[in-house]
Each structure stands twice: as structure tokens, then as C-alpha cells.
């Protein structure tokens, strides 16, 4: 796979706010994101899965899940799954402004107080993966583990090599878990096309995490239909 000629700018340069133009306190400075429903958690959450991105959201068939809370501005939804043995929450988020990341993590924080394990999954374009190797597989999965999860995790996924980094809500969630000495794992899937729905490795991973029982055969978008050639 060749990435030659692709302009890869360091992430920090794409998102910083130009403070020179901020003279007066902006009107939106006090407006905060908030949940549509009151946050009520009266039991331990065994596993909390955060799926970041449009593509991952399509993986989960939410029709059989119980929607318990939502923040429409940032497309954040939390679903609950009851099984006989486990109590799981699945959170999906997509198309949010990176500047709101830490605020979104603040919203999620009450859920983490009752949570044993947090696992985030994010798809990132392969062009952002920094490596010395010339031949890269079309899909690579790497992990970031909090100190508590490092030796206890059953996942056999290699750690994310430096200088690669993770940003956004998953990074905030795992940073917070690390600060609170709690379990947390971030999985980063480097894929050639983030909108591709036939990524075998990712399907296997979500199956292993038991999120994949509701996997759709394919996303229902026009581009994938046989309507156009």
C-alpha cells in the first residue's frame, strides 16, 4: 500500500483555536453540553464500550438495544444490554468537534464511577499511522492500556508504537481512567478507508468483545448498493 504524496499534518496543527480573534468572551462560552435524561445508575456496570465514528456506529444494530441517554449536539448515545451474567453499556459517538472532547468525557464520567472495565474503539485512517516499515497491512489494530489493564487484559493486541498517538473522546476517557487508577483500554484500528464496511479484522474484534452479535451485513448506504456502477 502506498501513501506517497499524501499530506499528513501533525494533529495539533489542525485543530487549535486562533485566540487572536477572541477579544470579547464569546456568547457560547457558558453554554454546556448536557444529557437529555437524568443520569441514574444504581448498579455496577461490568463493561462500558465506547465506539467512536460513523463506521463503528453502523456495526451496532441498535434496534434491539435500550437507549438510556443521549446528547444530540454531538451524536452521543448510550445503550444498555442486559444479559444473564453481564451488565454492559454501549456508547456511540460520531461527528463531534474535537474541542468538545474533554466536555464529553466530563459528561460520561458519572457512568465510569460504577464501571469495572472501559474499552474504546476508534477507526483512524492508515495515512495517520507513523512507521518505518514500507509494507503495511490494510488493517492494523493497536492498543493503549492503563497501568491497571496492562497485565490483566486478555486481549492480545500489541501496544501503540510511539510516536503514534490517540486523540479525542477515547483519549480523554482512557486518560481519566489512568488518573483514577482504573481499568481502561483504547483500541485503535488503522484502516485504509474508514468508511469501508468489510474489515474482517474489525468484525472479528467486535465479535470477540461480544458487541458484534448485532452486526449488520453491510451498511445501508446508496454507495454500497448496486444502484450505481
Amino acid at each position, binding site marked *: 500500500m*502506498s*501513501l*506517497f504524496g*499524501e499530506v*499528513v499534518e*501533525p*494533529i*495539533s*496543527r489542525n*485543530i*487549535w*483555536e*486562533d*485566540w*487572536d480573534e*477572541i*477579544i470579547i468572551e*464569546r456568547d457560547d*462560552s457558558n453554554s454546556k453540553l448536557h444529557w437529555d435524561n437524568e443520569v441514574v445508575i444504581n448498579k455496577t456496570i461490568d463493561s462500558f464500550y465506547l465506539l467512536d465514528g460513523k463506521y463503528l456506529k453502523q456495526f451496532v444494530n441498535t434496534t434491539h438495544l435500550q437507549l438510556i441517554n443521549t446528547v444530540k449536539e454531538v451524536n452521543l448515545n448510550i445503550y444498555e444490554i442486559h444479559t444473564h451474567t453481564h451488565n454492559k453499556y454501549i456508547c456511540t459517538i460520531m461527528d463531534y468537534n*474535537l*474541542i468538545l*472532547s*474533554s*466536555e464529553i*468525557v*466530563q459528561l460520561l464520567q458519572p457512568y465510569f464511577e460504577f464501571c469495572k472495565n472501559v474499552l474504546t474503539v476508534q477507526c483512524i485512517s492508515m495515512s495517520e499511522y*507513523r*512507521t*518505518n*516499515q*514500507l509494507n503495511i497491512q490494510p488493517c492494523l489494530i493497536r492498543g*493503549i*492500556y*492503563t*497501568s491497571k489493564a*496492562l497485565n490483566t487484559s486478555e486481549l492480545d493486541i500489541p*501496544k*501503540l*508504537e*510511539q*510516536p*503514534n*498517538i*490517540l*486523540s*479525542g*473522546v477515547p*483519549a*480523554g476517557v*482512557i*486518560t*481519566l481512567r*489512568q*488518573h483514577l487508577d482504573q481499568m481502561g483500554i*483504547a483500541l485503535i484500528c488503522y484502516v485504509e478507508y474508514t468508511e469501508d464496511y468489510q474489515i474482517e479484522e474489525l468484525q472479528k474484534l467486535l465479535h470477540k468483545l461480544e458487541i458484534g452479535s448485532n452486526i449488520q451485513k453491510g451498511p445501508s448506504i446508496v454507495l454500497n448498493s448496486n444502484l450505481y456502477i
Partner: protein
Amino acid sequence: MSQMHLWKFFYESDLSGYTLVIPSVAVGNVGQLACDLLISSLKMKKLASVYSPALIPVLGYDPYDLKSTNLSCSCEVYQCESKNIVVLQIRAPLVYKYARSFLENVISTFMTKQIKNIILLTSSYAHENKLISTSPFRYLMTDNCSYEEEIKKLNWTKHQEDQTRLRIYGGGFATMFFEICKENLLPCLILYKFCSEGDNSPDAYDMVHNLNKVLPVFNQDKDIFSQLLPPASWKLLFGGPTPKDIY
């Protein structure tokens, strides 16, 4: 509000008499790159990490040690006991809405630790430099700052304040931080360089070279550039190797 900013200290340390070096996330990331050079070259120890909603979250493994399994986040404090300096490395832009609260928290935390003074490293747009025949570096300091004598000897050019409001264009939170230092009577020196976006690692070397003139952390009798060690994370800063298929 201050409870929003979580500080996690890894060990106890007396910071009285220390100088705090802090970068502002600015054009070309010069301040951050200079702090990276300081941390890497002085083999500084991680003293604390900070979690705050004011910081856009970024996370990875230790950027100074490729074999490490320790995590590194948006904001961390590094200490060099032999040189009496601490560096607050900031790896992501601040969110304007929470910035003042965070910077006030930073200053109050280090004031309780009784640090001596603060040096803030930043940068400004190259096109803002009106005196192009002079050095691209400028400085700005509070009245109670102890570096006045050294700076006079060095004949550095002072920041031009041509407006009622203090501004360093492209300098990020530098001026806001300076105002907070002034309010708290904490001595603060801002050192900045005019530059453009690109490969700004040479600007970072220049910045450390100039910093060393007022804060001698490296041997001044030896060539400073031979004493600086770029961190492992600087590799692949602009992508991987060129694929062989193109030849």
C-alpha cells in the same frame, strides 16, 4: 472549578526555588518542541500528570522512551533536580472556555510549591516581525522578574506594546498566562520567536540556545547543540519513508 483539574503526583518533591518552564501552544509549536528537547536532553523525571477539561485529550506511550509502557497524556510535569527546573509540558491546545481556570490552577499549584519564577516559551507569526534586521527573538517580563540584568547584557529586543491590550499574535495563551502571573505577583519571563509553520525543530534548538543564556541548564563553555538530544518521538514527524515502488 478547581476540582475539575486533576493533578496526580508520582512522588513527593520540594520545588522551592525552582524555575518553571512552560510552553504555550502556538504557531509552529516551538515552545512545546523546545520543552521536548529540555526533557529529553536533561533526562528529566516525570513528577506529575494533569487531567483537565481545558486540554484537548491526546494519549500515547512515553515519547522519550520507546520501550516504555507508561502512558503520556496532554499535560505532564517533569523535574530535573540537579538544575532546579521543572517543565510543564503541554501536548495539546487549550480550550478557550476553560483556559483561564486551568492556567490559574497551574499557577496556584506551583505557588503552593514555592517555585521561584516562570519562563514561558512561545512563538509568533513571522510576518508580524516589523524589525527584520534584528534577532527573531523577543522577550517580555513582569516588573519583579530577576532576569533584567542578564537580558540587558544580552541586548535582547523587547516585545513592542503598541496597543492597550497585550498581544502576541499566534502566541496562544501566553498573554493570558502573563496577566495571571502579574495578578499573582509571580515573576514571569516570556521568550518568543517569530516563525512560520513547517519543520520547526531548528526553531526549538534556537529557543533552547537562547533560554540557556538566562537559565544556564547546559554547559555554556561547550557547544550547546552537541548537548541537546532530540526525543525519540521526533522521528517520523513528517510521515514515513518513501515507498520503493516509485523508483
